[in-house]
């Protein structure tokens, strides 16, 4: 209470600028007068009385200082004084200020920019209430490849019925379809089918209207839909009266019942949600084709992640016993929602964060070196301050204030640069990172940048502050007469060179590895020719009549083939690079039967038209599929090369048969491996099998591949017209060239590579500038010594070698340490590499010369300059 009162009084004094100095003076004057009178009465002479009174009162200036300290906030005033002094200094040496601020801007800007991504993906709470309780549940195959985590419908209902640790369980599947609102043309939209539980899992309230419940989720209930914010804006102009409107979705009359807020987008980029209207009893078939839903759940209150996980495993074990032939190889897996969304990105983000930290470290070292050099030049100033009575603390505070102010100025500049970067580039980031509300400037990012700047300022301010501790006042004051530089800090400067070289090497190696990976990713054979190919998708309703579906797609195929400039047209259930999973189990006539009927387990695609020619995928053996292969009694299928190598190495597959519960299939051809069939083109190609899309149950959802002579974009409008001619209810979706799809597929690795290369280049540049500065400064400080050496007979090359030798030794140790660190740190990169190993000696053989050339140039210049010094001038120099 008293302390608070005292503080308030002090703050008030500081704020109002009140100083009771006059009052103190008057009081002390009065005091002296009274004491003098008293002394005179005791018999002293007037002068003696006055003198004794003064002695008794004490040092007036010291009392005034104490009084003033008591009156105000001395630390704050020191800071204020030092800040103003620093700002004056900064104005007086604009070159020094510019270099430091720019250096810090680069370091803090790089780190803050990456931190925006770190924060968005690894730190922030997802925008759902109690988001840490939401999990994603995967179906995991105990051996071989899984189906991208997709869960079988009957397994989901079994899980939901048996589990006690899940408060609610929801699912969604992608359900692309067409929307006709009022009298508008049909538009292709991205839809999701979900159960009612989906909404309970996330617990996000709609912006307008409501979400759907159990009653809407019954089979044959009237169709309803919930719009995403983006779709509401795009297709309904943000009309607040949209709730209750009737639209046509998938050729069915549907009522719009709600609009979700902007932040809610699960799955990412979706336009609307519709009830799946699936019930536990309605789905008895448990085979591979039932595996198409993504499962999310909210843990029941008080249930830990671990206990939920063990319960899932127990249920999985039960199902494996109960349905040995279909579920025997499957188990449930579970991860938190954040890990599910961003877990894949984590290693790359961490690597980039470390790399940006390295840039900052090198920047700090540069600034610290500069400050050290300045501190050395200011030794006289400091000695003078000390002689005038400045305390150790006071001087250290001054140095720290200076460095922190410099760092904060640089940090603010870096923050500004980051702000611009995020404003312009956030929406162009690959994949999920581009989602609105993900990577953005916010208070945590701001706090991070400012905190980092202050920490850096204190960090590199410590070096010069400590340097000036030696209280050898007389020596320092005389210093100018006998310049002996390099007595301290010499080892520190060499260590700085080594560290900068080592860090640059680590980043260069990282950048080379990522660069080589990207090169391999793009240049190793894709299994198709991406140039001059246009793709788009058509989706008919799931319950369209088989004849009508076959007829529609045959019509579109014919019309497109007739367009001028079209070379070939093909259809497939999923394009290369599309994240699409559909697997099948088969018995094979040349392999022993297995319990789970999975002698052959392969990714399954349905194709039609002239797909091989349209994609540019070579046929290796046998023949292509013909329409008859889909409808004859003995179905025909084509397999890929990996299938042939894995299941019948060295043998001839043509004419062999595989079978599932629907009948026998004859293998009629083998085609080349196509990379990216189920998403990532970095994945190893697995066995694949291609059926005709025009079978007894023809595929309603097909992607078209159109190979053209000229630029494929020119055909978009005529294709749209042709499709409209065939069926005016249909809209073409996701029009893109194959090149664009590939571009998207490598966007993340390319971003990683670009950032890493930028960081490596920045670091190398900063390191070279820093090393040049250190060597040049050492030479400048030793001009007189050089003169003496030359006068005593040293040759010019000896002088050069003297300076070169020190930096070359430091550089050598830097390369050694950097190689060791790179070997250790590139392990973190392993998951990001493609076609190159982290310890590839070739990478080092490239990176080390790439590093040494600029670094040695940076040392050579000032070393040569040292040799060109005229000894006579040098000796005269002061």
């Amino acid at each position, binding site marked *: 209470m008293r302390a608070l*009162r005292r503080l308030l009084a002090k703050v008030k004094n500081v704020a109002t600028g009140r100083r009771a100095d006059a009052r*103190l003076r008057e*009081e002390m004057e009065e005091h002296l007068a009274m004491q003098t009178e008293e002394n005179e009465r005791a018999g002293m002479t007037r002068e003696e009385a006055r003198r004794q009174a003064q002695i008794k009162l004490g040092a007036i200036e010291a009392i005034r200082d*104490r*009084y003033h300290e008591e009156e105000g906030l001395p630390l704050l005033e020191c800071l204020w004084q030092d800040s103003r002094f620093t700002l004056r200094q900064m104005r007086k040496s604009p070159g020094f200020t510019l270099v430091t601020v720019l250096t810090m801007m680069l370091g803090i800007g790089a780190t803050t920019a990456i931190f925006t991504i770190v924060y968005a993906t690894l730190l922030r709470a997802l925008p759902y209430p109690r988001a840490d309780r939401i999990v994603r549940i995967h179906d995991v195959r105990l051996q071989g490849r899984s189906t991208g985590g997709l869960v079988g419908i009957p397994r989901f209902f079994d899980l939901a019925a048996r589990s006690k640790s899940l408060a609610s369980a929801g699912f969604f599947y992608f359900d692309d379809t067409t929307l006709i609102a009022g009298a508008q043309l049909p538009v292709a939209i991205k839809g999701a089918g979900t159960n009612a539980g989906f909404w309970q899992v996330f617990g996000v309230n709609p912006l307008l209207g409501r979400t759907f419940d159990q009653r809407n989720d019954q089979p044959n209930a009237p169709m309803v839909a919930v719009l995403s914010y983006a779709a509401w804006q795009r297709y309904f102009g943000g009309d607040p009266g949209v709730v209750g409107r009737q639209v046509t979705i998938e050729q069915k009359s549907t009522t719009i019942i709600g609009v979700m807020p902007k932040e809610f987008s699960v799955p990412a980029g979706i336009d609307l949600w519709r009830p799946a209207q699936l019930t536990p009893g309605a789905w008895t078939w448990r085979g591979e084709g039932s595996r198409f839903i993504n499962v999310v759940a909210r843990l029941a209150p008080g249930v830990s992640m671990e206990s939920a996980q063990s319960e899932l495993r127990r249920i999985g074990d039960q199902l494996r016993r109960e349905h040995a032939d279909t579920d025997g190889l499957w188990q449930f897996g579970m991860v938190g929602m954040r890990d599910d969304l961003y877990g894949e990105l984590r290693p790359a983000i961490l690597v980039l964060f470390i790399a940006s930290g390295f840039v900052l470290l090198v920047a700090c070292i540069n600034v610290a070196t500069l400050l050290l050099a300045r501190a050395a030049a200011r030794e006289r100033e400091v000695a003078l301050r000390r002689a005038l009575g400045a305390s150790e603390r006071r001087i250290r505070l001054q140095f720290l204030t200076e460095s922190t102010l410099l760092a904060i100025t640089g940090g603010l500049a870096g923050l500004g640069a980051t702000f611009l970067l995020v404003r312009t580039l956030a929406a162009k980031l690959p994949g999920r990172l581009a989602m609105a509300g993900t990577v953005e400037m916010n208070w945590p990012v701001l706090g991070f940048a400012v905190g980092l700047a202050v920490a850096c300022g204190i960090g590199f301010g410590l070096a010069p502050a400590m340097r000036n501790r030696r209280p050898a006042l007389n020596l320092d004051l005389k210093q100018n007469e006998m310049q002996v530089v390099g007595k301290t800090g010499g080892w520190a400067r060499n260590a700085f060179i080594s560290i900068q070289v080592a860090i640059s090497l680590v980043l260069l190696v990282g950048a080379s590895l990522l660069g080589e990976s990207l090169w391999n990713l793009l240049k190793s054979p894709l299994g198709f020719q991406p140039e001059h190919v246009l793709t788009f998708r058509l989706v008919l309703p799931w319950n369209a009549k088989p004849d009508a579906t076959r007829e529609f797609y045959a019509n579109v195929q014919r019309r497109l083939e007739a367009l001028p400039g079209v070379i070939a047209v093909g259809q497939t259930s999923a394009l290369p690079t599309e994240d699409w999973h559909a697997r099948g189990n088969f018995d094979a006539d040349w392999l022993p039967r297995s319990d789970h009927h999975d002698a052959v387990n392969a990714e399954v695609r349905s194709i039609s038209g002239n797909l091989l020619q349209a994609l540019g995928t070579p046929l290796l053996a046998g023949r292509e599929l013909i329409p008859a292969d889909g409808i004859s009694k003995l179905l025909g299928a084509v397999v890929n090369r990996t299938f042939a190598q894995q299941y019948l190495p060295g043998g001839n597959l043509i004419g062999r048969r595989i079978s599932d519960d629907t009948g026998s299939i004859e293998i009629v051809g083998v085609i080349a491996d196509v990379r990216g069939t189920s998403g990532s083109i970095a994945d190893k190609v697995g066995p694949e099998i291609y059926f005709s899309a025009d079978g007894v149950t023809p595929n309603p959802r097909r992607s078209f591949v159109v190979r053209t002579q000229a630029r494929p974009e020119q055909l978009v409008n005529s294709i749209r017209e042709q499709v409209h001619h065939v069926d005016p209810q249909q809209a073409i979706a996701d029009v893109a060239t194959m090149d664009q799809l590939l571009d998207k597929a490598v966007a993340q690795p390319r971003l990683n590579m670009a950032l890493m290369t930028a960081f490596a280049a920045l670091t190398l540049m900063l390191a070279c500038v820093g090393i040049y500065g250190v060597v040049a400064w050492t030479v400048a400080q030793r001009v007189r010594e050089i003169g003496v050496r030359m006068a005593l007979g040293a040759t010019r090359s000896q002088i050069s070698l003297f300076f070169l030798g020190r930096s070359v030794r430091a550089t050598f140790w830097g390369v050694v340490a950097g190689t060791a660190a790179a070997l250790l740190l590139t392990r973190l990169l392993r998951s990001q590499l493609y076609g190159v190993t982290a310890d590839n000696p070739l990478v080092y053989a490239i990176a080390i010369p790439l590093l040494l050339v600029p670094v040695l140039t940076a040392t050579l210049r000032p070393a040569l300059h040292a040799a060109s010094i005229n000894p006579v001038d040098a000796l005269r120099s002061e």
Partner: protein
Amino acid sequence: MKSKKDVQQGTLALMVLKTLETLGPLHGYGIARRIERISGDLLEVNQGTLYPVLLRLEQEGAVESDWGPSENNRRARFYRITRAGHKLLDSEKRDWEQTAAIIERFFQLKAGDWA
């Protein structure tokens, strides 16, 4: 940890308060003389240190001050103890007495008492 200076300052503040309580409003010189008379050398050399202590007490609200005429009809600043000052003095006094009593007991211990 309090440095020696802190302890002295704390004691000095206490003496100031006690002096003002007993003798009523006084100017700085008056306070210094009274303390000097009783405590001997504590203020022998540095009477001036009294003024920062007075300021501190004033900012804490324990004393008030105002200008008034001094004995030789000049202007002097007179300090007066406030109600908060009385309370402060009482509680500090209790603390001191307690501490003093404990220390006293320790110094009177003989070897036999430790057994």
